[in-house]
Protein backbone atom coordinates (compact mmCIF):
# COMPACT_ATOMS: atom_id res chain seq x y z
CA UNK A 1 0.00 0.00 0.00
CA UNK A 2 2.95 2.28 -0.53
CA UNK A 3 1.20 3.93 -3.46
CA UNK A 4 -1.75 4.79 -1.24
CA UNK A 5 0.51 6.53 1.25
CA UNK A 6 2.35 8.42 -1.47
CA UNK A 7 -0.99 9.40 -2.92
CA UNK A 8 -2.23 10.74 0.37
CA UNK A 9 0.98 12.63 1.00
CA UNK A 10 0.89 14.16 -2.47
CA UNK A 11 -2.71 15.22 -2.01
CA UNK A 12 -1.84 16.87 1.28
CA UNK A 13 1.17 18.59 -0.27
CA UNK A 14 -0.82 19.93 -3.22
CA UNK A 15 -3.56 21.15 -0.92
CA UNK A 16 -0.95 22.85 1.26
CA UNK A 17 0.34 24.65 -1.85
CA UNK A 18 -3.14 25.87 -2.67
CA UNK A 19 -3.74 26.86 0.93
CA UNK A 20 -0.44 28.68 1.05
CA UNK A 21 -1.25 30.51 -2.16
CA UNK A 22 -4.66 31.53 -0.87
CA UNK A 23 -3.12 32.64 2.42
CA UNK A 24 -0.38 34.69 0.77
CA UNK A 25 -2.82 36.34 -1.57
CA UNK A 26 -5.29 37.20 1.15
CA UNK A 27 -2.45 38.46 3.33
CA UNK A 28 -1.16 40.67 0.52
CA UNK A 29 -4.49 42.27 -0.22
CA UNK A 30 -5.27 42.49 3.48
CA UNK A 31 -1.95 44.17 4.15
CA UNK A 32 -2.42 46.73 1.40
CA UNK A 33 -5.85 47.71 2.65
CA UNK A 34 -4.96 47.51 6.33
CA UNK A 35 -1.92 49.73 5.89
CA UNK A 36 -3.48 52.15 3.50
CA UNK A 37 -7.19 52.55 4.00
CA UNK A 38 -6.79 54.18 7.40
CA UNK A 39 -5.11 57.11 5.76
CA UNK A 40 -7.58 57.38 2.90
CA UNK A 41 -9.95 60.23 3.67
CA UNK A 42 -11.96 62.57 1.52
CA UNK A 43 -9.35 65.17 2.35
CA UNK A 44 -6.57 62.90 1.08
CA UNK A 45 -8.37 62.27 -2.21
CA UNK A 46 -9.11 65.94 -2.84
CA UNK A 47 -5.89 67.64 -1.71
CA UNK A 48 -2.91 68.22 -3.93
CA UNK A 49 0.33 66.41 -3.22
CA UNK A 50 2.95 68.16 -1.20
CA UNK A 51 6.67 67.92 -1.73
CA UNK A 52 7.79 69.35 1.58
CA UNK A 53 4.94 69.33 4.04
CA UNK A 54 3.02 66.63 5.80
CA UNK A 55 -0.61 66.23 4.77
CA UNK A 56 -0.37 66.03 0.99
CA UNK A 57 -3.07 64.28 -0.98
CA UNK A 58 -3.39 62.66 -4.37
CA UNK A 59 -5.99 64.78 -6.14
CA UNK A 60 -3.95 65.58 -9.24
CA UNK A 61 -2.48 62.11 -9.48
CA UNK A 62 -5.90 60.53 -9.33
CA UNK A 63 -7.15 62.86 -12.05
CA UNK A 64 -4.06 62.18 -14.17
CA UNK A 65 -4.53 58.43 -13.86
CA UNK A 66 -8.10 58.62 -15.07
CA UNK A 67 -7.42 61.15 -17.79
CA UNK A 68 -4.51 59.12 -19.10
CA UNK A 69 -6.62 55.98 -18.94
CA UNK A 70 -9.41 57.55 -20.95
CA UNK A 71 -7.09 58.97 -23.61
CA UNK A 72 -5.32 55.61 -23.86
CA UNK A 73 -8.59 53.72 -24.23
CA UNK A 74 -9.76 56.15 -26.92
CA UNK A 75 -6.65 55.22 -28.92
CA UNK A 76 -6.50 51.54 -28.07
CA UNK A 77 -10.08 50.38 -28.32
CA UNK A 78 -10.75 51.08 -32.01
CA UNK A 79 -7.25 50.00 -33.06
CA UNK A 80 -7.30 46.84 -30.96
CA UNK A 81 -10.76 45.87 -32.13
CA UNK A 82 -9.72 46.50 -35.73
CA UNK A 83 -6.68 44.27 -35.25
CA UNK A 84 -8.81 41.56 -33.65
CA UNK A 85 -11.35 41.72 -36.47
CA UNK A 86 -8.55 41.49 -39.01
CA UNK A 87 -7.07 38.38 -37.42
CA UNK A 88 -10.37 36.63 -36.91
CA UNK A 89 -12.27 37.63 -40.08
CA UNK A 90 -10.13 39.09 -42.85
CA UNK A 91 -6.78 37.37 -42.38
CA UNK A 92 -6.00 34.75 -44.97
CA UNK A 93 -3.69 31.98 -43.81
CA UNK A 94 -0.55 33.45 -45.32
CA UNK A 95 2.78 34.99 -44.37
CA UNK A 96 1.44 38.47 -43.69
CA UNK A 97 -1.04 37.09 -41.20
CA UNK A 98 1.67 35.06 -39.54
CA UNK A 99 3.77 38.18 -39.30
CA UNK A 100 0.97 40.22 -37.73
CA UNK A 101 0.41 37.44 -35.22
CA UNK A 102 4.11 37.53 -34.35
CA UNK A 103 3.92 41.30 -33.95
CA UNK A 104 1.04 40.99 -31.53
CA UNK A 105 2.99 38.36 -29.62
CA UNK A 106 6.08 40.59 -29.47
CA UNK A 107 4.12 43.61 -28.30
CA UNK A 108 2.38 41.49 -25.67
CA UNK A 109 5.59 40.21 -24.18
CA UNK A 110 7.69 43.36 -24.23
CA UNK A 111 8.52 44.60 -20.74
CA UNK A 112 6.65 47.81 -20.11
CA UNK A 113 9.88 49.69 -19.46
CA UNK A 114 11.00 48.87 -23.01
CA UNK A 115 7.77 50.36 -24.32
CA UNK A 116 8.47 53.37 -22.12
CA UNK A 117 11.96 53.73 -23.61
CA UNK A 118 10.54 53.62 -27.11
CA UNK A 119 7.97 56.23 -26.15
CA UNK A 120 10.71 58.46 -24.79
CA UNK A 121 12.81 58.08 -27.90
CA UNK A 122 10.05 58.68 -30.42
CA UNK A 123 7.24 60.67 -28.86
CA UNK A 124 9.03 62.65 -26.17
CA UNK A 125 12.26 63.44 -28.00
CA UNK A 126 11.72 62.98 -31.74
CA UNK A 127 8.17 64.30 -31.97
CA UNK A 128 8.90 66.90 -29.27
CA UNK A 129 5.74 66.07 -27.35
CA UNK A 130 7.85 66.18 -24.20
CA UNK A 131 6.84 64.41 -21.02
CA UNK A 132 3.11 64.57 -21.59
CA UNK A 133 -0.25 62.91 -21.36
CA UNK A 134 -0.10 62.36 -25.11
CA UNK A 135 3.30 60.63 -25.04
CA UNK A 136 2.16 58.52 -22.10
CA UNK A 137 -1.11 57.58 -23.74
CA UNK A 138 0.52 56.53 -27.00
CA UNK A 139 3.10 54.45 -25.12
CA UNK A 140 0.32 52.80 -23.10
CA UNK A 141 -1.56 52.21 -26.36
CA UNK A 142 1.35 50.14 -27.65
CA UNK A 143 1.42 48.35 -24.33
CA UNK A 144 -2.33 47.66 -24.27
CA UNK A 145 -2.99 47.06 -27.97
CA UNK A 146 -2.10 43.35 -28.04
CA UNK A 147 -4.43 42.66 -25.13
CA UNK A 148 -7.44 44.16 -26.90
CA UNK A 149 -6.49 42.48 -30.17
CA UNK A 150 -6.45 39.08 -28.51
CA UNK A 151 -9.61 39.65 -26.53
CA UNK A 152 -11.46 40.74 -29.68
CA UNK A 153 -10.15 37.88 -31.74
CA UNK A 154 -11.13 35.33 -29.10
CA UNK A 155 -14.56 36.84 -28.62
CA UNK A 156 -15.24 36.87 -32.37
CA UNK A 157 -14.04 33.32 -32.77
CA UNK A 158 -16.41 32.15 -30.09
CA UNK A 159 -19.41 33.52 -32.02
CA UNK A 160 -21.13 30.49 -33.64
CA UNK A 161 -20.24 30.09 -37.32
CA UNK A 162 -23.95 29.53 -37.98
CA UNK A 163 -24.63 33.23 -37.37
CA UNK A 164 -22.03 34.31 -39.88
CA UNK A 165 -23.40 31.84 -42.43
CA UNK A 166 -26.93 33.05 -41.83
CA UNK A 167 -25.89 36.57 -42.69
CA UNK A 168 -23.75 35.60 -45.68
CA UNK A 169 -26.62 33.40 -46.85
CA UNK A 170 -28.78 36.52 -47.12
CA UNK A 171 -26.18 38.04 -49.40
CA UNK A 172 -25.04 40.41 -46.69
CA UNK A 173 -21.47 41.62 -47.05
CA UNK A 174 -18.62 40.83 -44.72
CA UNK A 175 -18.23 44.22 -43.08
CA UNK A 176 -21.97 44.67 -42.57
CA UNK A 177 -22.08 41.17 -41.05
CA UNK A 178 -19.18 41.96 -38.74
CA UNK A 179 -20.70 45.25 -37.68
CA UNK A 180 -24.27 44.11 -37.19
CA UNK A 181 -24.04 40.44 -36.26
CA UNK A 182 -20.59 39.38 -35.09
CA UNK A 183 -19.55 42.40 -33.03
CA UNK A 184 -22.86 42.62 -31.14
CA UNK A 185 -22.65 38.89 -30.39
CA UNK A 186 -19.04 39.23 -29.24
CA UNK A 187 -19.71 42.42 -27.31
CA UNK A 188 -19.84 40.99 -23.75
CA UNK A 189 -16.50 39.27 -24.20
CA UNK A 190 -14.86 42.32 -25.72
CA UNK A 191 -16.24 44.63 -23.06
CA UNK A 192 -15.01 42.40 -20.24
CA UNK A 193 -11.57 42.31 -21.83
CA UNK A 194 -11.46 46.06 -22.29
CA UNK A 195 -12.37 46.79 -18.69
CA UNK A 196 -9.82 44.26 -17.42
CA UNK A 197 -7.15 45.83 -19.58
CA UNK A 198 -8.18 49.24 -18.28
CA UNK A 199 -7.24 48.00 -14.81
CA UNK A 200 -3.82 47.07 -16.13
CA UNK A 201 -3.37 50.47 -17.78
CA UNK A 202 -4.52 52.22 -14.63
CA UNK A 203 -1.79 50.58 -12.56
CA UNK A 204 1.01 50.79 -15.10
CA UNK A 205 4.04 52.79 -14.04
CA UNK A 206 7.29 51.78 -15.74
CA UNK A 207 6.08 52.77 -19.22
CA UNK A 208 5.09 56.19 -17.89
CA UNK A 209 8.26 57.22 -16.08
CA UNK A 210 9.89 58.43 -19.29
CA UNK A 211 6.77 59.38 -21.21
CA UNK A 212 4.26 61.08 -18.95
CA UNK A 213 6.89 62.10 -16.45
CA UNK A 214 7.43 62.16 -12.72
CA UNK A 215 5.86 65.54 -12.06
CA UNK A 216 2.78 67.47 -12.96
CA UNK A 217 2.03 71.18 -12.85
CA UNK A 218 -0.34 72.34 -10.14
CA UNK A 219 -3.59 71.80 -11.92
CA UNK A 220 -6.13 74.58 -12.05
CA UNK A 221 -9.44 72.79 -11.95
CA UNK A 222 -11.26 75.95 -12.95
CA UNK A 223 -9.46 76.23 -16.26
CA UNK A 224 -10.73 73.60 -18.68
CA UNK A 225 -9.14 74.99 -21.80
CA UNK A 226 -7.03 72.14 -23.22
CA UNK A 227 -4.40 74.70 -24.24
CA UNK A 228 -3.64 76.21 -20.85
CA UNK A 229 -0.45 74.79 -19.37
CA UNK A 230 -2.05 74.06 -16.00
CA UNK A 231 -5.37 72.87 -17.36
CA UNK A 232 -6.38 69.38 -16.29
CA UNK A 233 -7.28 68.66 -19.92
CA UNK A 234 -4.07 69.83 -21.55
CA UNK A 235 -2.72 66.75 -23.34
CA UNK A 236 0.76 68.20 -23.70
CA UNK A 237 1.52 68.73 -20.04
CA UNK A 238 3.42 66.26 -17.92
CA UNK A 239 1.36 64.07 -15.67
CA UNK A 240 2.37 62.00 -12.70
CA UNK A 241 -0.14 59.19 -12.20
CA UNK A 242 -1.11 57.47 -8.99
CA UNK A 243 1.13 54.46 -9.51
CA UNK A 244 4.09 56.60 -10.53
CA UNK A 245 3.39 58.66 -7.42
CA UNK A 246 3.76 55.58 -5.22
CA UNK A 247 7.15 55.02 -6.77
CA UNK A 248 8.33 58.60 -6.62
CA UNK A 249 7.13 59.18 -3.06
CA UNK A 250 9.28 56.27 -2.01
CA UNK A 251 12.36 57.16 -3.95
CA UNK A 252 12.56 60.91 -4.34
CA UNK A 253 10.16 62.56 -1.93
CA UNK A 254 11.38 63.98 1.33
CA UNK A 255 8.11 64.45 3.16
CA UNK A 256 7.83 62.84 6.57
CA UNK A 257 4.52 61.14 5.89
CA UNK A 258 5.76 59.51 2.65
CA UNK A 259 5.10 55.98 3.97
CA UNK A 260 1.51 56.84 4.79
CA UNK A 261 0.95 58.60 1.47
CA UNK A 262 2.42 55.64 -0.41
CA UNK A 263 0.41 53.09 1.53
CA UNK A 264 -2.81 55.02 1.09
CA UNK A 265 -2.15 55.54 -2.63
CA UNK A 266 -1.48 51.82 -3.01
CA UNK A 267 -4.76 51.04 -1.27
CA UNK A 268 -6.63 53.40 -3.59
CA UNK A 269 -4.90 51.88 -6.61
CA UNK A 270 -5.68 48.33 -5.52
CA UNK A 271 -9.25 49.32 -4.80
CA UNK A 272 -9.75 50.67 -8.31
CA UNK A 273 -8.19 47.59 -9.85
CA UNK A 274 -10.60 45.53 -7.78
CA UNK A 275 -13.52 47.65 -8.96
CA UNK A 276 -12.44 47.30 -12.60
CA UNK A 277 -12.16 43.56 -12.17
CA UNK A 278 -15.49 43.03 -10.45
CA UNK A 279 -17.37 45.38 -12.77
CA UNK A 280 -15.91 43.63 -15.82
CA UNK A 281 -17.19 40.31 -14.56
CA UNK A 282 -20.55 41.63 -13.45
CA UNK A 283 -21.21 43.65 -16.58
CA UNK A 284 -20.13 40.85 -18.91
CA UNK A 285 -22.39 38.35 -17.21
CA UNK A 286 -25.31 40.78 -17.11
CA UNK A 287 -25.16 41.61 -20.83
CA UNK A 288 -24.74 37.96 -21.69
CA UNK A 289 -27.87 37.17 -19.73
CA UNK A 290 -29.85 39.95 -21.35
CA UNK A 291 -28.70 38.96 -24.81
CA UNK A 292 -29.58 35.31 -24.45
CA UNK A 293 -33.04 36.59 -24.95
CA UNK A 294 -35.40 35.79 -22.13
CA UNK A 295 -36.63 39.35 -22.20
Amino acid at each position, binding site marked *: MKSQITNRMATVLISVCAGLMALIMIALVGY*IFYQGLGHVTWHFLTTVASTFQVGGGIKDQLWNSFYLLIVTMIFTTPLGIAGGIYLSEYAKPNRVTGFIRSCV*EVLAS*LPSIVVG*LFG*MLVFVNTFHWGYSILSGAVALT*IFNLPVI*VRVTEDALRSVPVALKEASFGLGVGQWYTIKNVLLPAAFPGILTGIILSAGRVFGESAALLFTAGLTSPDLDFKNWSPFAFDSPLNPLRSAETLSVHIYSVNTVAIVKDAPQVAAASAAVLALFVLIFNLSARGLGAWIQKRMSGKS
Partner: protein
Amino acid sequence: MTLNKGSLFSMSDEPAVSTQDRLRKRRQNINVLFRRDSELRGKLAIYFGAILIILATVSLTLFLVWQGLRLFLFDGVNPLHFIFSNDWNPGDSAHPTYGAFPMIFGSFAITFLSALIATPISIGTALFMSEISRKWGNKALRPVIEILVGIPSVVYGLIGLTLIIPFIAHHGGGIGYGLLPGMIVVGLMIMPTITSIAADALQSIPQELKSASYALGATRWQTIYKVIIPAALPSLLTAVVLGMARAFGEALAVQMVIGNVTDIPHSMVNPAATLTTIITLHMGNTTSGSAFNHALWSLGLILLIMSYIFILIIRYLSRRSKVL
Protein backbone atom coordinates in the same frame (compact mmCIF):
# COMPACT_ATOMS: atom_id res chain seq x y z
CA MET B 1 -28.57 51.41 -58.60
CA THR B 2 -31.82 52.87 -57.32
CA LEU B 3 -33.18 52.12 -60.75
CA ASN B 4 -33.47 48.38 -60.32
CA LYS B 5 -34.26 48.34 -56.60
CA GLY B 6 -37.91 49.18 -57.14
CA SER B 7 -38.45 46.41 -59.58
CA LEU B 8 -36.58 43.89 -57.47
CA PHE B 9 -38.86 44.32 -54.56
CA SER B 10 -42.14 44.29 -56.34
CA MET B 11 -43.15 40.73 -56.83
CA SER B 12 -45.97 41.22 -59.26
CA ASP B 13 -44.09 43.17 -61.90
CA GLU B 14 -41.85 41.42 -64.34
CA PRO B 15 -38.28 42.32 -63.41
CA ALA B 16 -37.26 45.16 -65.62
CA VAL B 17 -33.62 44.23 -65.31
CA SER B 18 -32.24 41.02 -66.75
CA THR B 19 -30.79 38.35 -64.49
CA GLN B 20 -27.45 38.97 -66.11
CA ASP B 21 -27.51 42.60 -65.06
CA ARG B 22 -28.76 41.92 -61.57
CA LEU B 23 -26.01 39.46 -60.82
CA ARG B 24 -23.13 41.27 -62.43
CA LYS B 25 -20.63 42.97 -60.15
CA ARG B 26 -21.02 46.70 -60.27
CA ARG B 27 -18.03 48.78 -61.11
CA GLN B 28 -16.91 50.43 -57.90
CA ASN B 29 -15.85 54.03 -57.93
CA ILE B 30 -14.49 56.29 -55.27
CA ASN B 31 -18.00 57.14 -54.10
CA VAL B 32 -18.38 53.81 -52.32
CA LEU B 33 -16.01 55.16 -49.69
CA PHE B 34 -18.52 57.80 -48.70
CA ARG B 35 -21.53 55.54 -48.61
CA ARG B 36 -23.00 54.49 -45.34
CA ASP B 37 -22.12 50.84 -44.54
CA SER B 38 -19.55 50.83 -47.29
CA GLU B 39 -17.88 47.42 -47.31
CA LEU B 40 -14.70 48.93 -48.64
CA ARG B 41 -14.55 51.60 -45.99
CA GLY B 42 -14.91 48.98 -43.25
CA LYS B 43 -12.22 46.86 -44.79
CA LEU B 44 -9.86 49.81 -45.06
CA ALA B 45 -10.37 50.68 -41.39
CA ILE B 46 -9.60 47.11 -40.39
CA TYR B 47 -6.49 46.93 -42.54
CA PHE B 48 -5.36 50.24 -41.12
CA GLY B 49 -5.46 48.73 -37.63
CA ALA B 50 -3.52 45.69 -38.77
CA ILE B 51 -0.87 47.79 -40.50
CA LEU B 52 -0.47 49.95 -37.42
CA ILE B 53 0.31 46.88 -35.34
CA ILE B 54 3.08 45.95 -37.76
CA LEU B 55 4.33 49.52 -37.85
CA ALA B 56 4.47 49.79 -34.05
CA THR B 57 6.35 46.52 -33.65
CA VAL B 58 8.82 47.05 -36.43
CA SER B 59 9.59 50.66 -35.60
CA LEU B 60 9.93 49.87 -31.90
CA THR B 61 12.40 47.10 -32.64
CA LEU B 62 14.42 49.09 -35.15
CA PHE B 63 14.59 52.28 -33.08
CA LEU B 64 15.68 50.47 -29.93
CA VAL B 65 18.23 48.35 -31.76
CA TRP B 66 19.74 51.39 -33.43
CA GLN B 67 19.77 53.34 -30.21
CA GLY B 68 21.28 50.41 -28.32
CA LEU B 69 24.09 49.99 -30.82
CA ARG B 70 25.30 53.59 -30.54
CA LEU B 71 27.55 52.82 -27.59
CA PHE B 72 29.48 50.31 -29.67
CA LEU B 73 29.40 52.24 -32.95
CA PHE B 74 30.15 55.76 -31.78
CA ASP B 75 31.70 55.48 -28.34
CA GLY B 76 34.07 52.67 -29.23
CA VAL B 77 33.01 50.33 -26.49
CA ASN B 78 33.71 46.67 -27.15
CA PRO B 79 30.42 44.71 -26.96
CA LEU B 80 32.16 41.76 -25.31
CA HIS B 81 33.64 44.06 -22.72
CA PHE B 82 30.19 45.52 -22.18
CA ILE B 83 28.65 42.14 -21.53
CA PHE B 84 31.40 40.48 -19.51
CA SER B 85 33.12 43.20 -17.57
CA ASN B 86 32.26 43.88 -13.96
CA ASP B 87 33.39 47.43 -14.04
CA TRP B 88 30.50 49.85 -14.41
CA ASN B 89 31.33 53.47 -13.96
CA PRO B 90 30.03 55.42 -16.93
CA GLY B 91 29.66 58.59 -14.89
CA ASP B 92 33.39 58.95 -14.31
CA SER B 93 34.42 61.82 -16.53
CA ALA B 94 38.10 60.85 -16.64
CA HIS B 95 37.90 57.07 -17.02
CA PRO B 96 34.39 55.92 -17.75
CA THR B 97 33.91 52.16 -17.81
CA TYR B 98 31.02 50.25 -19.27
CA GLY B 99 30.87 46.76 -17.81
CA ALA B 100 27.25 45.65 -17.61
CA PHE B 101 27.81 42.20 -16.22
CA PRO B 102 26.62 42.98 -12.68
CA MET B 103 23.26 44.11 -14.03
CA ILE B 104 22.97 41.18 -16.42
CA PHE B 105 23.80 38.90 -13.52
CA GLY B 106 21.25 40.65 -11.31
CA SER B 107 18.49 40.35 -13.90
CA PHE B 108 19.09 36.66 -14.45
CA ALA B 109 19.44 36.02 -10.74
CA ILE B 110 16.13 37.70 -9.98
CA THR B 111 14.47 35.85 -12.85
CA PHE B 112 15.62 32.37 -11.87
CA LEU B 113 15.33 32.81 -8.12
CA SER B 114 11.82 34.21 -8.33
CA ALA B 115 10.78 31.42 -10.68
CA LEU B 116 12.32 28.97 -8.23
CA ILE B 117 10.09 30.08 -5.38
CA ALA B 118 6.99 30.76 -7.47
CA THR B 119 6.91 27.60 -9.57
CA PRO B 120 6.30 24.89 -6.94
CA ILE B 121 3.53 26.79 -5.19
CA SER B 122 1.97 27.85 -8.48
CA ILE B 123 1.99 24.42 -10.08
CA GLY B 124 0.77 22.90 -6.82
CA THR B 125 -2.11 25.33 -6.73
CA ALA B 126 -2.89 24.69 -10.38
CA LEU B 127 -2.96 20.94 -9.68
CA PHE B 128 -5.29 21.57 -6.76
CA MET B 129 -7.57 23.63 -8.99
CA SER B 130 -7.75 21.05 -11.74
CA GLU B 131 -7.34 17.67 -10.02
CA ILE B 132 -8.35 17.91 -6.38
CA SER B 133 -11.16 20.39 -6.14
CA ARG B 134 -12.38 22.02 -9.30
CA LYS B 135 -15.26 23.51 -7.41
CA TRP B 136 -13.06 25.37 -4.94
CA GLY B 137 -10.49 26.03 -7.59
CA ASN B 138 -12.82 27.67 -10.05
CA LYS B 139 -15.19 29.31 -7.62
CA ALA B 140 -12.80 30.66 -5.00
CA LEU B 141 -9.16 30.50 -6.07
CA ARG B 142 -9.46 31.51 -9.70
CA PRO B 143 -11.20 34.86 -9.17
CA VAL B 144 -8.75 35.79 -6.41
CA ILE B 145 -5.79 34.87 -8.58
CA GLU B 146 -7.14 36.77 -11.54
CA ILE B 147 -7.54 39.87 -9.41
CA LEU B 148 -3.98 39.50 -8.19
CA VAL B 149 -2.67 39.25 -11.75
CA GLY B 150 -4.00 42.76 -12.14
CA ILE B 151 -2.44 44.28 -9.00
CA PRO B 152 0.08 46.86 -10.21
CA SER B 153 3.74 46.01 -9.75
CA VAL B 154 4.49 49.17 -7.76
CA VAL B 155 2.11 47.87 -5.12
CA TYR B 156 4.16 44.69 -4.87
CA GLY B 157 7.25 46.86 -4.69
CA LEU B 158 5.75 48.86 -1.87
CA ILE B 159 4.95 45.70 0.06
CA GLY B 160 8.57 44.68 -0.37
CA LEU B 161 9.75 48.03 0.86
CA THR B 162 7.53 48.33 3.90
CA LEU B 163 7.10 44.70 4.95
CA ILE B 164 9.79 42.42 3.58
CA ILE B 165 12.87 44.65 3.85
CA PRO B 166 12.31 45.59 7.51
CA PHE B 167 11.68 41.92 8.23
CA ILE B 168 14.93 40.84 6.60
CA ALA B 169 16.88 43.66 8.23
CA HIS B 170 15.45 42.74 11.60
CA HIS B 171 16.56 39.14 11.22
CA GLY B 172 20.19 39.94 10.56
CA GLY B 173 20.09 40.64 6.86
CA GLY B 174 22.05 43.88 6.98
CA ILE B 175 20.01 46.79 5.69
CA GLY B 176 17.62 44.41 4.00
CA TYR B 177 18.06 45.48 0.37
CA GLY B 178 19.29 42.97 -2.18
CA LEU B 179 18.43 39.90 -4.22
CA LEU B 180 16.47 38.24 -1.41
CA PRO B 181 13.69 40.83 -1.14
CA GLY B 182 13.84 41.21 -4.93
CA MET B 183 13.21 37.57 -5.55
CA ILE B 184 10.42 37.44 -2.96
CA VAL B 185 8.65 40.48 -4.39
CA VAL B 186 8.96 39.30 -8.00
CA GLY B 187 8.13 35.74 -6.96
CA LEU B 188 4.90 36.92 -5.37
CA MET B 189 4.17 38.99 -8.43
CA ILE B 190 4.56 36.20 -10.98
CA MET B 191 2.83 33.55 -8.87
CA PRO B 192 -0.70 34.45 -9.97
CA THR B 193 0.43 34.66 -13.60
CA ILE B 194 2.01 31.20 -13.58
CA THR B 195 -0.88 29.70 -11.64
CA SER B 196 -3.63 30.91 -13.92
CA ILE B 197 -1.87 29.82 -17.13
CA ALA B 198 -0.89 26.47 -15.61
CA ALA B 199 -4.43 25.86 -14.36
CA ASP B 200 -5.80 26.52 -17.86
CA ALA B 201 -3.31 24.08 -19.31
CA LEU B 202 -4.14 21.35 -16.78
CA GLN B 203 -7.88 21.80 -17.19
CA SER B 204 -7.63 21.39 -20.94
CA ILE B 205 -6.15 17.88 -20.63
CA PRO B 206 -8.82 15.54 -22.04
CA GLN B 207 -10.82 13.71 -19.40
CA GLU B 208 -10.45 10.40 -21.28
CA LEU B 209 -6.73 10.44 -20.62
CA LYS B 210 -7.33 10.67 -16.88
CA SER B 211 -10.19 8.17 -16.93
CA ALA B 212 -7.99 5.65 -18.71
CA SER B 213 -5.40 5.98 -15.98
CA TYR B 214 -7.90 5.67 -13.17
CA ALA B 215 -9.49 2.68 -14.88
CA LEU B 216 -6.14 0.92 -14.68
CA GLY B 217 -6.28 1.34 -10.93
CA ALA B 218 -3.79 4.16 -10.68
CA THR B 219 -4.06 6.47 -7.68
CA ARG B 220 -4.58 10.16 -8.12
CA TRP B 221 -0.92 10.93 -7.56
CA GLN B 222 0.17 8.25 -10.04
CA THR B 223 -2.23 9.75 -12.57
CA ILE B 224 -0.91 13.24 -11.97
CA TYR B 225 2.71 12.17 -12.04
CA LYS B 226 2.59 9.68 -14.90
CA VAL B 227 -0.17 11.01 -17.13
CA ILE B 228 -1.17 14.58 -16.45
CA ILE B 229 2.18 16.25 -15.90
CA PRO B 230 3.88 14.62 -18.92
CA ALA B 231 0.92 15.54 -21.13
CA ALA B 232 0.82 19.11 -19.90
CA LEU B 233 4.56 19.62 -19.58
CA PRO B 234 5.12 21.98 -22.52
CA SER B 235 2.17 24.14 -21.42
CA LEU B 236 3.34 24.15 -17.81
CA LEU B 237 6.80 25.20 -18.95
CA THR B 238 5.22 27.92 -21.05
CA ALA B 239 3.53 29.21 -17.92
CA VAL B 240 6.83 29.31 -16.09
CA VAL B 241 8.65 30.96 -19.00
CA LEU B 242 5.96 33.62 -19.25
CA GLY B 243 6.42 34.25 -15.55
CA MET B 244 10.17 34.50 -16.04
CA ALA B 245 9.75 36.92 -18.92
CA ARG B 246 7.67 39.11 -16.68
CA ALA B 247 10.27 38.86 -13.93
CA PHE B 248 13.09 39.75 -16.30
CA GLY B 249 11.39 42.89 -17.51
CA GLU B 250 10.01 44.06 -14.18
CA ALA B 251 11.39 47.46 -13.30
CA LEU B 252 9.95 49.46 -10.46
CA ALA B 253 9.05 46.70 -8.03
CA VAL B 254 12.63 45.46 -8.16
CA GLN B 255 14.03 48.97 -8.18
CA MET B 256 12.39 49.70 -4.86
CA VAL B 257 13.96 46.75 -3.00
CA ILE B 258 17.22 45.75 -4.64
CA GLY B 259 19.48 48.59 -3.48
CA ASN B 260 20.88 49.50 -6.91
CA VAL B 261 24.57 48.86 -6.38
CA THR B 262 26.33 47.81 -9.55
CA ASP B 263 28.57 45.13 -8.12
CA ILE B 264 28.19 41.41 -8.09
CA PRO B 265 26.59 40.89 -4.66
CA HIS B 266 28.42 38.70 -2.15
CA SER B 267 25.23 37.42 -0.60
CA MET B 268 21.49 37.45 -1.03
CA VAL B 269 21.19 40.43 1.26
CA ASN B 270 23.84 42.62 -0.33
CA PRO B 271 22.54 45.43 -2.51
CA ALA B 272 22.60 44.57 -6.21
CA ALA B 273 21.17 45.92 -9.45
CA THR B 274 19.39 44.72 -12.57
CA LEU B 275 19.22 46.04 -16.12
CA THR B 276 15.85 47.62 -15.53
CA THR B 277 16.71 49.24 -12.23
CA ILE B 278 19.79 50.99 -13.61
CA ILE B 279 17.82 52.22 -16.61
CA THR B 280 15.04 53.65 -14.43
CA LEU B 281 17.56 55.16 -12.06
CA HIS B 282 19.65 57.04 -14.60
CA MET B 283 17.67 57.47 -17.81
CA GLY B 284 16.02 60.63 -16.59
CA ASN B 285 19.23 62.39 -15.53
CA THR B 286 21.79 61.61 -18.21
CA THR B 287 22.31 63.89 -21.15
CA SER B 288 20.96 62.37 -24.29
CA GLY B 289 23.79 61.72 -26.73
CA SER B 290 26.35 61.13 -23.97
CA ALA B 291 28.13 57.80 -23.73
CA PHE B 292 26.49 57.19 -20.36
CA ASN B 293 23.09 57.65 -21.97
CA HIS B 294 24.06 55.33 -24.83
CA ALA B 295 25.14 52.72 -22.32
CA LEU B 296 21.65 52.82 -20.78
CA TRP B 297 20.08 52.27 -24.20
CA SER B 298 22.41 49.31 -24.66
CA LEU B 299 21.06 47.89 -21.42
CA GLY B 300 17.60 48.39 -22.94
CA LEU B 301 18.75 46.53 -26.03
CA ILE B 302 19.64 43.53 -23.86
CA LEU B 303 16.10 43.63 -22.44
CA LEU B 304 14.68 43.73 -25.95
CA ILE B 305 16.83 40.83 -27.12
CA MET B 306 15.90 38.80 -24.05
CA SER B 307 12.20 39.33 -24.63
CA TYR B 308 12.62 38.07 -28.20
CA ILE B 309 14.45 35.04 -26.81
CA PHE B 310 11.62 34.37 -24.39
CA ILE B 311 9.18 34.51 -27.34
CA LEU B 312 11.28 31.97 -29.24
CA ILE B 313 11.32 29.65 -26.23
CA ILE B 314 7.54 29.93 -25.88
CA ARG B 315 7.08 29.25 -29.58
CA TYR B 316 9.26 26.17 -29.30
CA LEU B 317 7.23 24.95 -26.34
CA SER B 318 3.90 25.58 -28.02
CA ARG B 319 5.03 23.59 -31.05
CA ARG B 320 5.93 20.77 -28.69
CA SER B 321 2.52 20.88 -27.05
CA LYS B 322 0.79 20.68 -30.43
CA VAL B 323 2.70 17.54 -31.32
CA LEU B 324 1.47 15.78 -28.21
